[in-house]
């Protein structure tokens, strides 16, 4: 069977000593960053991009992927131990996980989270492997109009997942798209919005924008009110869950995996939504819903499985269509381009070792997380005691090196400061940065495909609704938009995000 031979190829790539080592480094770095509050996976990957320049493309992408799900994992550790989610997708875990920890069951909560994540990771890795090839075949049928419509779906769903005002999220997308267009126009060579600065002729550097908007803005926000973190416990004992725990986590893990896998594929960042959806579902199907918020096993197992499954399947749009589902995937696109790979449906056929190697490494990475992290929890807990004022100069130094090393362009460093300031002010104005960054990445692609589609249709905009796949995608985008504006959904959505705060 094709799938088996493909997976065999993938595992033989991912299991080479070199790639195993990079996977391990990635997973450890990711966990480290996930545990340390104040810096997310996006800024980390941006910061660590220079490390991967000298590596083989496969190794570098394996390592970056490891950082990504390592960070998800580390985020849940802090969510459980100190009620402070290191990553936004583990915010839900904090609700019941922290309560479990307060009852002296921190070890069990951590294990449940780890085992649930591992199961979800295994299933969703297989899903990626199974669906990648058929989806690639569909993607090869895509013309300019379909690509345009698909990106519209992605942008619209990123709005649905953003906190707060939908109008503001829409505005952030528009602003992001505009910023993405800075640079030289591909058709005519006209410089646009560069303010006459020649160094911006190639466009604003994506890494600089990401580091500024996510990394620096986050540091500034943390500096607003400096608090000392209180640690619940220095020692975590009794790691293994009881038989009863196992019985109670089975259902939530299975449901969480299904929900996460489905939502993760959606362009727009499904992992966070998946965790919330899973929590809501578990609360509804539970025999005693009052247990939730008091340390329910299902409240940890479900969302943790869901966010890990979502993190995994969000690779599907990237690997098959070359369209990033979330800011982290956007950075992966950047990393691929730096390595000379054009992301898209051709990757699977032209670079099978890369394609299947990444998929296989996802599973290996998940296994490493379970095996390594449970014994290492003591170390992560110690790290939490490092004060923040020691951390952020380190982060700033690495950010500067990381951004500069991409193109050796000092103007990128000025852009970091500018976007750090801008990103911070936008956060203060209660605007979400994620839609902006997605818009920034998709801006040039969106424009290129729009213009190409219009040329192909000789200026007839009906091409977007007469081509069936394109029409379907646009209808989907419209449906999402209508749903988020419905008064009942709007209210529910506000409640969900309220819970997170």
């Amino acid at each position, binding site marked *: 069977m094709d799938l088996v031979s493909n997976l065999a190829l993938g595992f033989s790539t991912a299991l080479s000593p070199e790639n195993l080592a990079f996977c391990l480094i990635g997973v450890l770095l990711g966990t480290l960053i996930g545990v340390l509050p104040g810096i997310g996976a996006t800024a980390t990957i941006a910061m660590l991009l220079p490390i991967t320049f000298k590596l083989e493309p496969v190794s570098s992408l394996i390592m970056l992927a490891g950082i990504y799900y390592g960070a998800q994992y580390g985020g849940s550790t802090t969510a459980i131990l100190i009620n402070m989610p290191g990553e936004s997708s583990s915010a839900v875990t904090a609700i019941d996980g922290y309560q479990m920890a307060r009852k002296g069951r921190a070890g069990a909560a951590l294990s449940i989270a780890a085992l649930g994540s591992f199961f979800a990771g295994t299933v969703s890795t297989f899903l990626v492997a199974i669906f990648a090839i058929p989806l690639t075949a569909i993607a090869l049928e895509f013309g300019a109009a379909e690509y345009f419509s698909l990106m519209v779906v992605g942008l619209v769903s990123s709005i649905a997942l953003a906190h707060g005002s939908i109008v503001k999220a829409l505005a952030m997308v528009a602003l992001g798209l505009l910023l993405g*267009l800075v640079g030289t126009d591909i058709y005519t060579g006209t410089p646009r919005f560069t303010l006459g600065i020649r160094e911006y002729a190639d466009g604003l550097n994506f890494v600089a924008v990401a580091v500024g908007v996510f990394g620096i803005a986050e540091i500034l926000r943390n500096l607003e009110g400096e608090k000392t973190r209180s640690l619940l416990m220095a020692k975590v004992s009794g790691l293994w869950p009881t038989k009863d725990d196992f019985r109670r986590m089975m259902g939530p893990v299975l449901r969480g995996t299904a929900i996460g896998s489905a939502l993760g594929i959606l362009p727009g960042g499904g992992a966070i939504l998946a965790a919330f959806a899973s929590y809501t579902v578990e609360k509804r199907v539970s025999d005693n819903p009052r247990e939730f918020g008091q340390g329910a096993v299902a409240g940890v197992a479900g969302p943790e499985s869901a966010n890990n499954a979502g993190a995994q399947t969000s690779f599907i749009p990237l690997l098959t269509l070359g369209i990033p589902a979330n800011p982290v995937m956007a950075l992966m696109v950047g990393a691929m381009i730096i390595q000379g790979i054009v992301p898209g449906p051709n990757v699977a056929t032209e670079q099978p070792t890369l394609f299947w190697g990444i998929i296989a490494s996802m599973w290996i990475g998940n296994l490493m997380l379970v095996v390594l992290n449970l014994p290492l929890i003591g170390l992560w807990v110690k790290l939490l005691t490092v004060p923040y*004022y020691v951390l952020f*100069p*380190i982060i700033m130094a690495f950010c500067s090196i990381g951004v*500069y090393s991409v193109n050796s362009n*000092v103007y990128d460093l000025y852009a970091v400061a500018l976007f750090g300031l801008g990103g*911070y002010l936008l956060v203060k104005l209660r605007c979400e940065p994620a839609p902006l960054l997605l818009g920034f990445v998709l801006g040039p692609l969106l424009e290129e495909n729009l213009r190409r589609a219009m040329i192909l249709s000789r200026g007839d905009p009906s091409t977007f609704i007469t081509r069936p796949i394109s029409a379907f995608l646009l209808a989907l985008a419209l449906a999402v938009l209508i749903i988020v504006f419905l008064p009942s959904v709007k209210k529910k959505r506000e409640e969900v995000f309220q819970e997170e705060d």
Partner: protein
Amino acid sequence: MKQLQFDSTNAICGLTFIGLGGFFIYQCLDLDLGTAFRMGPGYFPLILAAILTLLGVVVLVQATRVQGEPMGPLALRGMLFILPAPVFFGLTVRGLGFVPSLFFAALIAAFASSRMKPFLAVLLAGAITLFSVLVFSYALGLPFERFGPWTRL
């Protein structure tokens, strides 16, 4: 008589969007718009900028209706020390070279926290520089000049 109430955060936000939209529209005026068939470089950005401006107006109108929480304090000290750090690094990395430039950039950033003591800051900046030089310059071989022309007299 009812006094007109503003949610200041949303009012500023709306005005910011309008301002940014206006800026991009102004910039688009110099660009060739083209036609829907053959779009020029200004066509798509102009649409986007118009949408941004329009959304800014919507946010501004909403500001008069709904009251939100106030914006809260700005991290002024943070902005004063964090933002210049990468700029300083950018200005000096070619002249001073990687080692001194990074040391001072880290030192500047360190003072963003009111808890940082000068001695600890110097120590921390030194440690960061040492680590970065070993990892990025020696181990990874990134093409940075360790000491630039300004340090050679």
